[in-house]
């Protein structure tokens, strides 16, 4: 069974209701007599219907977007008067719920200072990263000069935002995990207390073994989910030098030429060779620190699922990737 080539293009238009009226009758009568062309219409139609199916929105998409927009407002780039809308309260409430749900699974870290516009962002970040252990590069491939349409000359978004749980899990999650933090040996059974003290004070490199790689960000390649794309799909990976010990209630990275001034008061450890600096921020100050980064127009990325992340840890880590 075959269709008639001379009708094929018209069939596509007919499906869309775009065929000129004076041609419709002729095509309709042809379709009645030609099963091939009728089948072609059926094929186009089923493809069209399949594509029209609505996709499920990741559950923290809306709150994350509105939060990002509220940050945009804070930066004052547009509509300086833009008041915080109902989303602040609404998403904070929704985020509380999400927090509670995730808390059941023990995957979430507490959110210090759970109030104000920062909270929903923070909570969103607490959701497991869809990269499942992969640390997405602080330099997302589209973060700079992301040219949109003519109306919007490219200004880059100054922060990265958290991602939703992946509704369609990648077929090869193991691959993504292969070079994540999980591959790094962690000190055994360090108590959270010890960990935070270590993190804050005892941060000298051990120097006895080959230095483990510093934070490694592979740039450029984005995460893909095409099955055939999977091998090149890593967005980036990260591992810590051995002197970074313990657990953290939150980990964020920021790409900046130097540690921002707002973080200068905290203990830090620089890895000059790797071009990376680790800053240990008390968890209670973490939100404030993120806010300061956003205010300074710096892109940061929050890692939401990693073995080093432990609910209740007193310390949080901000990784400065020197750009």
């Amino acid at each position, binding site marked *: *069974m*075959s*269709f008639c080539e001379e009708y*094929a*293009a018209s069939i*596509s*238009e007919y499906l*869309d209701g*775009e065929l000129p009226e004076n041609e419709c009758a002729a095509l309709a009568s042809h379709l009645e007599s030609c*099963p*091939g062309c009728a*089948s072609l219409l*059926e*094929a*186009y139609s*089923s*493809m*069209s219907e*399949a*594509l*029209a199916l*609505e*996709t499920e*929105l*990741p559950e923290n*998409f*809306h709150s994350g*977007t*509105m939060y*990002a*927009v*509220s940050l*945009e*407002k804070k930066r004052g780039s*547009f*509509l300086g008067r833009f008041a*915080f*809308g109902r*989303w602040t309260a609404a998403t904070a409430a929704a985020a509380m719920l999400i927090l509670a749900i995730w808390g059941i699974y023990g995957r979430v870290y507490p959110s210090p200072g759970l109030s104000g516009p920062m909270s929903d962002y923070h909570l969103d970040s607490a959701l497991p990263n*869809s*990269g499942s252990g992969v640390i*997405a590069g602080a330099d997302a*491939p*589209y973060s700079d000069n*992301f040219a*949109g*349409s003519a*109306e919007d000359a490219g200004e880059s*978004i100054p922060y*990265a*935002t958290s*991602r939703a749980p992946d509704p369609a899990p990648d077929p090869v999650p193991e691959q993504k995990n292969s070079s994540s933090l999980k591959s790094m040996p962690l000190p055994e059974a360090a108590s959270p207390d010890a960990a935070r003290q270590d993190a804050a004070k005892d941060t000298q490199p051990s120097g006895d073994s080959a230095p483990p790689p510093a934070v490694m960000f592979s740039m*450029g*390649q*984005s*995460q*893909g*989910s*095409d099955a055939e*794309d999977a091998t090149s799909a890593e967005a980036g990976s990260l591992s810590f030098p051995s002197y970074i010990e313990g657990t953290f209630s939150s980990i964020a990275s920021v790409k900046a030429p130097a540690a921002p001034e707002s973080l200068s008061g905290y203990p830090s450890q620089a890895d000059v060779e790797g071009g990376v600096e680790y800053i240990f921020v008390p968890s209670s100050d973490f939100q404030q620190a993120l806010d300061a980064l956003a205010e300074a127009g710096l892109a940061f990325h929050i890692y939401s699922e990693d073995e080093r992340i432990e609910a209740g840890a007193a310390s949080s880590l901000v990784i400065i990737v020197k750009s």
Partner: protein
Amino acid sequence: MDRDTELVKKAQLGDSDAFEELVLTYEKKVYGMALRMTGSADDAFDVAQEVFIRAYRSLRGFKFESRFSTWLFRLSSNMCIDFLRKSGRRSEFSLDDRGEAGERANEIPDLRYCPETELEKKELAQSVSQALLRLSPEHRQIVVMRDLCGLSYGEIACALSLEEGTVKSRLFRARERMRQELISKGNFFSPPPSKPAKGGERA
């Protein structure tokens, strides 16, 4: 004044609730477009979010020369294309791929395949999504604008700065390409002849 226009005007004056309502109205479509264009939930999340941030930034410059939805879809679509370009993920076909008509097989899907169950529908939807990802970004874009966003040819022409005739022919070629992808992956298969054979028959 339609609802969108009213909301955009309010948002332009600083009404954050109005902007949020616009987001609520279009977020599924914008995310869906990004998902269809990038094929990755992660990328779609980021790109779609960026679309709204960019829309927020650019809203003041919106002059109501087109519908807001057309403007937003154009922005989304451009950002998706740009993302694909930057991430180096082009499909194997380019828009200027010659010989499309020449190699076009005339086989058509078997109507007996019409999915009956939810599972079958889901499977077909998945296959169609995969086939879509094998099109060039430009083909992908036009199919998504039509089938997912529901834009008319005129609106697509306006959004993509194309002639309407180009929209028509590009959309048709994209559908043909997608159909062939489905056939080659065995999602559609050629039925036995049900009428006297014509050229191009394969079954």
